[in-house]
């Protein structure tokens, strides 16, 4: 036994202690419990993985039978294979770093222990999600991280926009979860089990014998769930709004870990997707569409966190593209490198915001290079990583995806390259607007404390060098030999696109700052369309939210509830009252009148017996 259960148990214990008694604890104790529990979890992951190497087959631990009913048999099982190992390291590793950073970032905030309790609860659910050995246990974690995401987006619960964003995330995720649930039911019906080992074993053994339409349907339903959790078209709308939460939350949950749950789930279900080329195609197209759409929006936003939020959506799109073209290990590789540089981007942005006393608007920044040099350096490291500049981490994973996309369909590669140029552009646009030129705000910038800059430094190293963890090679046994031919020209093309994006950003925002305004004026309507995020929120409002709300008001409230339900309840009361009013006439209080009724009744009884013969 490796006691896998200890991995999520540490953060759960941290959550319980801090959640129940944290308000009475001094801050150092809260820190120790919160960070310590996650650190212990990380160390336990290291110990477990060291004990299980080389981990060629999945290692499963069974704890108890959870549901036993008819042919449904679901155990509470944890499992570790190479995919899980990568995810465990990313989640607990990045989680620990962000917990440490949060000590500095949240130092002056109210609800300190509540924040750390939620973070620990999130870690618990995320680890359950990753460790799960069947879809239902995965679903526990899946729902749990959604809950924590909701709690943490709405962390500043006195701010209406924050609570609204929390609700939006929750509701949008429900749509995805419906798809995921249906996918699970269909899996249960088709394979008679939810265990990964059983389902995938059957899928591989029976392969062609299974009804391809059923498999496609399962895959598409699971994809609906993944689009909700991983913010893909059409359910990506909640993620940019989720930036209302504290910045470490944006880094941990809405960039590095939780949003990759959908990618992880699809990669986990690879044996199913392999049976359905159509579903794979849909995954790739959804990913590509998301990547392009979000990247274009990201180029126009002025809120630094919004820029990075759309960047996250766009990068998740890349991961789905990778999955869809069959490069599962490249997708997972991108999960990891993205976790490094996107966590760094958000934490760096948090450091900037912290330095400026809460300012998030890029137009109110500028010239911060010399004022907060450490933050500048680490953000630059993250930016070159995400822009795909060799030899930094983003270059490796993005290229793996793009090469696989080229092998699948060249047009996908070229769209991906264009997106890479946009990615480099919007990230460096943010960097240049923030750190170059003259300072446009009126705060007094100060560098963040060591407890914040140290995690930034670690993440910067990972962002720069993380590409040399050879994840695709490590995962190759799991996903089979998906090997895209290495083509130098294609690599040059994508790198050139990235450099072009950086160059354009330099031209627009440092060399000729008046240029962007002229261009946006020239483009006019198109610019406004993108700046307003393609009016997707407004369209959803008009097409879905309003009809549902108005329909509910007109039909469910005013007719079903007010008339039918209330009518039935009030009617029962009124009936009882009117019957009572009639019967009350009998209750005169005159004994002789009662006696008369008794006599009449007896007479009637006797008469009836005489007439109908009575009992014999």
């Amino acid at each position, binding site marked *: 036994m490796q006691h896998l259960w200890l991995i999520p148990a540490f953060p759960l214990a941290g959550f319980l202690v801090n959640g129940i008694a944290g308000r009475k604890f001094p801050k150092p104790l809260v820190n120790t419990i919160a960070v310590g529990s996650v650190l212990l979890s990380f160390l336990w992951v290291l110990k477990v993985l060291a004990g299980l190497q080389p981990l060629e087959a999945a290692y499963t631990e069974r704890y108890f039978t959870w549901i036993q009913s008819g042919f449904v048999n679901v155990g509470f099982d944890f499992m570790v294979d190479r995919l899980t190992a990568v995810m465990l390291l990313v989640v607990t590793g990045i989680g620990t770093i962000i917990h440490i950073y949060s000590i500095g970032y949240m130092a002056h905030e109210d609800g300190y222990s509540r924040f750390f309790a939620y973070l620990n609860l999130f870690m618990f659910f995320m680890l359950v999600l990753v460790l799960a050995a069947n879809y239902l246990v995965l679903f526990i974690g899946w729902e749990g991280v959604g809950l924590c995401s909701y709690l943490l987006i709405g962390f500043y619960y006195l701010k209406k926009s924050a609570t609204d964003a929390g609700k939006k995330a929750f509701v949008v995720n429900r749509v995805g979860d419906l798809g995921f649930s249906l996918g699970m039911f269909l899996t249960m019906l088709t394979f008679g089990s939810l265990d990964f080992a059983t389902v995938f074993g059957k899928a591989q053994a029976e392969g062609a014998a299974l009804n391809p339409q059923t498999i496609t349907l399962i895959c598409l339903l699971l994809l609906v769930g993944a689009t909700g959790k991983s913010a893909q078209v059409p359910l990506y709308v909640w993620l940019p709004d989720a930036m209302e939460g504290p910045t470490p939350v944006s880094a941990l949950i809405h960039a590095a870990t939780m949003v990759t749950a959908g990618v992880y789930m699809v990669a986990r279900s690879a044996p199913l997707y392999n049976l359905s080329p159509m579903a794979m195609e849909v995954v790739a197209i959804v990913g590509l569409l998301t990547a392009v759409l979000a990247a274009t929006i990201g180029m126009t936003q002025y809120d630094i966190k919004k820029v990075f939020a759309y960047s996250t959506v766009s990068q998740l799109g890349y991961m789905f593209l990778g999955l869809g073209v069959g490069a599962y290990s490249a997708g997972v590789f991108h999960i990891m490198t993205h976790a490094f540089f996107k966590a760094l981007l958000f934490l760096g942005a948090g450091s900037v915001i912290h330095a400026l006393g809460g300012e998030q608007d890029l137009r109110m920044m500028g010239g911060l290079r010399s004022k907060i040099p450490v933050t500048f350096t680490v953000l630059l490291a993250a930016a070159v990583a995400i822009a795909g500049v060799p030899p930094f981490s983003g270059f490796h994973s993005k290229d793996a995806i793009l090469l696989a996309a080229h092998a699948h369909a060249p047009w996908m590669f070229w769209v991906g390259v264009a997106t890479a140029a946009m990615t480099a552009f919007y990230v460096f646009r943010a960097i240049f607007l923030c750190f170059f030129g003259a300072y446009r705000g009126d705060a007094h910038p100060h560098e963040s404390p060591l407890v914040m800059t140290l995690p930034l430094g670690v993440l910067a190293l990972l962002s720069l060098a993380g590409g040399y963890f050879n994840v695709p090679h490590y995962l190759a046994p799991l996903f089979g030999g998906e090997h895209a031919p290495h083509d130098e020209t294609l690599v040059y093309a994508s790198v050139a696109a990235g450099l072009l994006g950086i160059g354009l950003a330099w031209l627009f925002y440092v060399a000729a700052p008046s240029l962007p305004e002229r261009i946006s004026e020239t483009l006019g309507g198109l610019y406004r369309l993108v700046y307003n995020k393609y009016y997707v929120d407004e369209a959803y409002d008009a097409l879905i939210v309003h009809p549902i709300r108005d329909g509910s008001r007109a039909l469910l409230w005013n007719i079903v509830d007010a008339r039918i339900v209330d009518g039935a309840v009030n009617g029962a009361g009124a009936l009882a009252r009117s019957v009572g009013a009639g019967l009350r006439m009998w209750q005169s*209080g*005159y004994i*002789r009148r009662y006696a*008369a009724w008794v006599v009449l009744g007896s007479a009637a009884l006797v008469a009836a017996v005489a007439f109908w013969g009575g009992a014999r």
Partner: protein
Amino acid sequence: MPDLAQVLAAQVPLSWYLILSVILFVIGAAGFLIRRNIITVFMCIELMLNAVNLSFIAFSHKLKMVDGHIYSFFVMVVAAAEAAVGLAIILTVFKNRETLEIDEVSSLKL
């Protein structure tokens, strides 16, 4: 020298007893409905009970079964208990209201 009981049994038919019983019962019921004095009403109840007793005994004798006797004993027990409780109630009513007019004791209503 024939036994009186045998003579009565032979000569007085069952119907006579039943007719007497009915007469007594109707007098009781009518009194219950018509009279207003609680004591009288109470006596009428006793009269009805005894009318029923009479028919029980008559049937019992005719059918040579002891069941009727047993029932009439039950009725007597109930009547005795009722007399005890009823008279106590009547006493209390009179103490509180200084009336035995049955229609004036009518507060048990809405």
